[in-house]
C-alpha cells in the first residue's frame, strides 16, 4: 500500500481548566488516502470538530492545546511546525469549510474578493489573475452567472449558494485535503443533496481528499469511502463504508445505525441509545460506552479497550464486539 496523504498518530486535544487537564480528544489515529473521503461520525460533543480543529491547529480557545506523536501531511509533521510554517500549509494543503456559511463569510467583503484572497496568498497571483480564477472556481462550484456573482456580497446569496461560495473560498487555495465540518447541516434537504454531489464531483475532478464531519449517517452513507465513529473523545471503530454500514462491530456503531430513521421505517417510536455519554472531566476507568452498552461485561468496566485491527482495514476498540453479522 502506498503511503497515505495524511497520517494522524495519537492526536489529542487537551483543555487546561484551573489546575487540571481534561482530554477532549484522546489519541486519535487514522490515515487518509489520496482521493479518499472519510466520514467522521459521532454525537454532539464527541470531539469530531475539535479533532479537526486540532489538526489545523486552529483551536477555538486559548486554554486548548494539541499533543500527539505526529500528523504527517505533504512531507511535514504538523505538530513540529511553528505558527508561520503552519500558516503556509493552512489553506494550501489543508482547507476547511464550516457548518454555517452565513457567519463564516465576511459580510463586508465581496464573494470574489474573499476567494481571491486565498488565491493571491498561496499562488502569488495578481489582482486580475485572482479575479479570473475566482470566477472560474465559482463556476466549478455551480454558481450560475459567475461573472456578475463574483461582485456580490454574501447577503445577496441564498443559503445553498453561500455554502457553494464557502467551498469556492476553500478551493481557491487549491488544498489537497478538505475538512468539511457538517457542511450540509444548515441546509434544507434538496440543497443538501446538491452540495454532497458537488463534493463528490470535486473529489473526482481534483483528486481532493476529504474528512467529512457529520452526525447524519445518511449524509455519510451517500458520500464517504470509509467511516470512523467517535465516542466521548475516542475513535471506537473505523472501517470501509460498506463494512461499517452492513456489519458494524462496535455496539455504539450498531446503536447509531439502529437509531437512523431509515433503518426503522415502520417503528412507532424512534429507537434511541439509552443514557448519556460520560462527562469528560469524570471518565470511567474502563470503556467509555460501558454504562450504555447492551453487551457490557465486567472487563469493560476495568479496562479501556484499545483501537486494534480486527480484520484488514477495519479497526475496533471493544472487548465484546458484535459478531460479523449484525446485532446479536
Amino acid at each position, binding site marked *: 500500500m502506498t503511503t497515505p496523504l495524511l497520517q494522524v498518530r495519537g492526536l489529542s486535544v487537551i483543555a487546561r481548566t484551573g489546575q487540571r487537564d481534561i482530554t477532549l480528544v484522546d489519541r486519535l489515529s487514522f490515515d487518509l488516502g489520496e482521493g479518499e473521503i472519510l466520514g467522521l461520525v459521532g454525537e454532539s460533543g464527541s470531539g469530531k470538530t475539535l479533532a479537526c480543529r486540532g489538526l489545523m491547529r486552529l483551536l477555538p480557545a486559548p486554554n486548548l492545546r494539541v499533543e500527539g506523536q505526529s500528523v504527517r501531511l505533504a512531507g511535514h509533521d504538523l505538530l513540529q511546525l511553528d505558527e508561520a510554517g503552519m500558516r503556509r500549509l493552512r489553506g494550501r494543503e489543508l482547507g476547511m469549510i464550516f457548518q454555517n456559511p452565513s457567519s463564516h463569510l465576511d459580510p463586508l467583503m465581496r464573494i470574489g474578493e474573499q476567494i481571491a484572497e486565498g488565491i493571491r496568498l498561496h499562488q502569488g497571483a495578481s489582482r486580475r489573475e485572482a479575479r479570473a480564477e475566482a470566477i472560474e472556481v465559482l463556476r466549478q462550484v455551480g454558481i450560475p452567472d459567475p461573472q456578475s456573482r463574483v461582485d456580490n*456580497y454574501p447577503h445577496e446569496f441564498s443559503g445553498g449558494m453561500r455554502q457553494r461560495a464557502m467551498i469556492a473560498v476553500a478551493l481557491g487555495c487549491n488544498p489537497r485535503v478538505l475538512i468539511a465540518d457538517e457542511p450540509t447541516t444548515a441546509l434544507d434537504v434538496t440543497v443538501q443533496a446538491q452540495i454532497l454531489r458537488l463534493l463528490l464531483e470535486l473529489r473526482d475532478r481534483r483528486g481532493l481528499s476529504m474528512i467529512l464531519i457529520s452526525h447524519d449517517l445518511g449524509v455519510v452513507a451517500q458520500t464517504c469511502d470509509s467511516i470512523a465513529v467517535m465516542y466521548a473523545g475516542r475513535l471506537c471503530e473505523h472501517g470501509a463504508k460498506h463494512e461499517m454500514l452492513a456489519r458494524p462491530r462496535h455496539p455504539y456503531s450498531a446503536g447509531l445505525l439502529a437509531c437512523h430513521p431509515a433503518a426503522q421505517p415502520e417503528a412507532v417510536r424512534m429507537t434511541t441509545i439509552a443514557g448519556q455519554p460520560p462527562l469528560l472531566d469524570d471518565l470511567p476507568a474502563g470503556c467509555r460506552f460501558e454504562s450504555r452498552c447492551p453487551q457490557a461485561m465486567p472487563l469493560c468496566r476495568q479496562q479501556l479497550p484499545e483501537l486494534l485491527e480486527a480484520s484488514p482495514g477495519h479497526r475496533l476498540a471493544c472487548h465484546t464486539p458484535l459478531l460479523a453479522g449484525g446485532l446479536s
Partner: protein
Amino acid sequence: MSLARYRFVLIRPLQLLPVLLGISIITFVLVRSIPGDPARVLLGARSTPDAIQKIRAQFGLDEPIWVQYLYFLKNLLNGDLGKSLLYKVDALPLIASRIEPTLMLVLGSVALALLIAVPLAILAARSKGGWADNLIRLFTTAGLGLPAFWLGLMLILLFSVHWGLFPVSGYGRTWADKLHHLVLPCLTIALALSAVLVRNLRASILLEMQADHVTAARARGLGEGAILRRHVLPNSMVPTINLLAVNIGWLISGTVVIESLFSLPGVGQLLVRGIFTRDYMVVQGVAMVLACATVAVNFLADVATTVLDPRVKIQ
C-alpha cells in the same frame, strides 16, 4: 442594484425641514425668556426710556412675540437672520465669518482622535490583559474623567508656557499659522474623544476577532496582520462610526468651552458673547447653524455606514 440603497441621500434633507422649524421655535422662545432687555444692555449707562423705546422699535422688539417669530421666518426664507443688535451688521455674514475656526477645530479634533484611537485600540485588543492594555485603560479612564477646560489649561501650561512650542491662544492669519494655533485646542478635545473611541473600538475588535469569518480567514492561511486589516477592522469600524457621529454632535456644542479657553474666534465664542449681550438674532442664528451641523454629521455617518456595510439600507 445597490444604488437604491442611497436613495435616502435625496430624501433625508427634506426630512430636515420640520426639525429645523422645531429648533427655530424653541431657540426663539428660549432666547426671549432670558431675563434682561437687549436695548438696555446695548445702551448701558446712557439708557433713557426714550432711547430704549427707540431701539426696541428699530429692531421690532415691541411687537408681540409671535409676530416677531413670523418676521424671523419670513426673513429666514430670504436667507436673512436679522441684524445683530451688538455689532449692527447682518447676523448671517457675521456667523459665516466665524464658521471656519470652529469647523477646523472640529475636523482637526476628530482626525487627531482617530489617529490616537485606532492604533491604541488595536494595541489594547491585541495585548488584552497585558501591561499595554492596562496602560491604555488608565489613559481612557483619565481621558473620560478629566474636564476639558482643566486638560486644556494643563496643555497650555506645558506646551505653551513651559516649552513654548505652541501659542497660548488666538487664531492665525496664514494656513500654517492657523494650524499652529489649532494644535493644542484640537489635542484637548481629541484626548477626551479618543478615550471614548478606544474603549468602544477595543471591545468591537475583540468581539470581531472571535467571529466565524475570522476563523475561516485563518483556516485559509491568512496572517494575523492581514486578518486585522481586511476583516476585523472594517467590521469593527461600523459601530464606532455611529458612536463618533453622536460624539461629534456633542462636540460641536462643546467647542464653546474650548473656543473660550483658547480665544478662538469661532461660532461658540460668538454664541457666548451673544447670550451675555442678549443679541437675539446672533444667538438664534448660531443655534440654527449648530443644529444644521449636528444633523449634517449624523447624515454623513449614515452615508459612511452605507458605504462600508453593504447590508445597510436606510429608509
